[in-house]
């Protein structure tokens, strides 16, 4: 088994929690796992990317070009920045939330919607979700990432119990039920 997952988003969207849960699940399932991300200056509203690699043994902590099995984009356009990792067999899990880059926010540039549509068509499978709306329906927009994680869980060969256990271990105790509900919303999407 070889599973390379690229998670992309904008600083502050909570990609770190989601990717930590993926690592826990892979370890519990008996696989080797490595995860690479960049902290620091890139956190301040910048584009963030996390590489997760799962397999019998994993060498490099970063995914080679054109080798991602799944790209999870927590923001509508962010996957465009990492198109060099896409192959003919890559699945896209896309949260349709828009966060405007500064040049778009101040009117100097346009949000690249047409590019989103054209690059999206290059993926072998696309799951699109308005995770923020789903999360607000459940009562808290902060759990949007958990909806996205639920969709990812359905796309990879690990047991649902392992996901639920990893979530219980990682989220604040008071929020376990809400997080599991959000995860299941994504899982049954």
């Amino acid at each position: 088994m070889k599973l390379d997952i690229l998670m992309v988003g904008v600083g502050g969207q909570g990609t770190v929690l989601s990717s930590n849960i993926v690592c826990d699940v892979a370890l519990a399932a008996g696989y080797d796992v490595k995860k690479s991300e960049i902290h620091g200056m890139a956190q301040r509203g910048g584009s963030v990317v996390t590489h997760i690699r799962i397999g019998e043994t994993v060498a490099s902590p970063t995914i080679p070009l054109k080798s991602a099995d799944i790209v999870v984009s927590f923001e509508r356009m962010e996957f465009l920045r990492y198109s060099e990792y896409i192959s003919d067999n890559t699945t896209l899990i896309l949260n349709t939330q828009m966060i405007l880059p500064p040049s778009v926010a101040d009117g100097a540039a346009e949000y690249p919607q047409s590019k989103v549509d054209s690059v999206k068509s290059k993926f072998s499978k696309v799951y699109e979700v308005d995770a923020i709306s789903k999360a607000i329906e459940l009562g808290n927009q902060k759990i949007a990432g958990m909806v996205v994680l639920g969709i990812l869980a359905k796309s990879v060969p690990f047991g649902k119990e392992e996901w639920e256990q990893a979530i219980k271990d990682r989220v604040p105790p008071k929020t376990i039920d809400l997080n599991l509900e959000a995860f299941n919303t994504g899982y049954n999407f």
Partner: protein
Amino acid sequence: MKKVLSGNEAFARAAYEAGVGVVSSYPGTPSTEITENVSHYKEIYTEWATNEKVGLEVAIGASLGGKRAMSCMKHVGLNVAADPLMTLSYTGVNAGLVVIVADDPNMYSSQNEQDSRHFARFGKVPMFEPCDSQEAKQFTKDGFALSEEYCTPVLVRSTTRISHVQTIVELEDRVEAPKFAPENNIPKWVMIPANARKRHRFVENRLELLTELAEGEKYNKIAMRDKKIGVVCSGVAYTYVREAVPEASTLKLDLAWPLPMKKIAKFASSVDKLYVVEELDKFYETEIKAQGIKVEPLNRDVCGELSVDAVRELFGLPPVETDVDTTLPFRPPNMCPGCSHRGVFYAISRLKLFVTGDIGCYTLGLLPPLQAINTTVCMGASIGMAHGLDKATDDMSKKSVAVIGDSTFLHTGINSLVNTVYNQGHSTVIILDNTITGMTGHQPNAGSGKDIHGNPMQKIDFAAICKAVGVKEENIRVIDPFDIANAMEVLKEETSKPEPSVIITNKPCIFADRSVIEEPYFIHEDKCSGCRVCTKLGCPAIAWDASKRVALIDENLCTGCHLCIKVCKFGAIEQRSK
């Protein structure tokens, strides 16, 4: 038990398992989380030091006192700590002492790309180089024992792709560290010339013993595969080599210094062609070639980091063709909504002042639309550079300011301010006191009023320091950074004075004090004239609606800092009621 840990968590775990007693560090990406994680182990005394030199000196004192000690820093931090390191090499240690230094190939969060392996050779001390979190923990633990056995400080080199990569680690229990009494040994610890000459000889002998260790079986293992290609490599580059050319034989250098030249020569003679794959400088390659061992040339870039694809290309495998879209709108890092620096930079940009800058979140003041940082060199440089600018020109002191944060001022800014006063400079210094070390992830410092655990502490009084070093009381101005009109007035007054001045801001980072966050603001579309002055603040919460030709506020991002109402002349911005 196995757990997925980042390199930084693994370094911290090593300190715990090795029975370390004292850790003192200054934050710096990508090393910061090591010390943060150590602070969660109640068995270890942990502190944020004012700078890396102080941190290392605290560790030396702790070693002298008989406790295993550690100091962690980023690569440029070791420049600051180089002074104690170079002589610590001579004194050696009492209890084990490990310094972790984290390089930043590709400069994800740094001002240069220096290669810390040179410090091991320069200081004649051993350096480990782990390739994942398991080795990060193991080599750091080994480092304490080795430090005591060979009487040497031990360097462990990390990189961003070790510190911020998570891999599986086998956890072990904490051991009782060997007991050392506080050491009183004048010939060893007092480095006057007569003693230091003897210790230099000791250092040279120690390096020979360490070379024997490097040549031995425990470290630097050879793995023979295909004999056509042999690769000498270390750290994360080793993992790239294993994936890119899995058939190649490898000599993995666990110790970056001293090098096992006999082993390398033996490896070279057992393969058809010997290559060296390393990130940044040609450190191993230069040393190996100096021994007369033939190294095959590789067209490797010494700038930036390696990857599986980069290593594949080095060995002539066809590159993966990709088309990267470079025309996408960027997401540069930005000062946060509600940032207490923004108003001051807006005032500076309105006055068109030249700014000698420093290292911290406020370096982001260089970005459009503010564009109010003209230099950034190193921690503390802003004040000395402003003074030099003043002495070299007739009137630059009237058109320029030095900008420095609270933590950076305490790190290496104070001494420069003393210099400006002593040498009768005219420059104006702005201390952006937001009560926290922001860019590295909101660590407390001596100006925060709390320690690494969040316990309340005495808070440094910046105005009192400035007065004590000789800045006149009337030239020390404490201002509200959100009051733009007043900031401009004070800037005009202080830059015009032929004396040193210090302007200190008095509002916290929104992450240092969440209580400053208020109800968000919104813009009345009918009142907005479309003048766009509010968008010139560079606040991420303010956007421009090109179709309606009005500004709008993203209320999910707005922290209610009310900076924008100070610049709106049409009363179009209003706060949501609770």
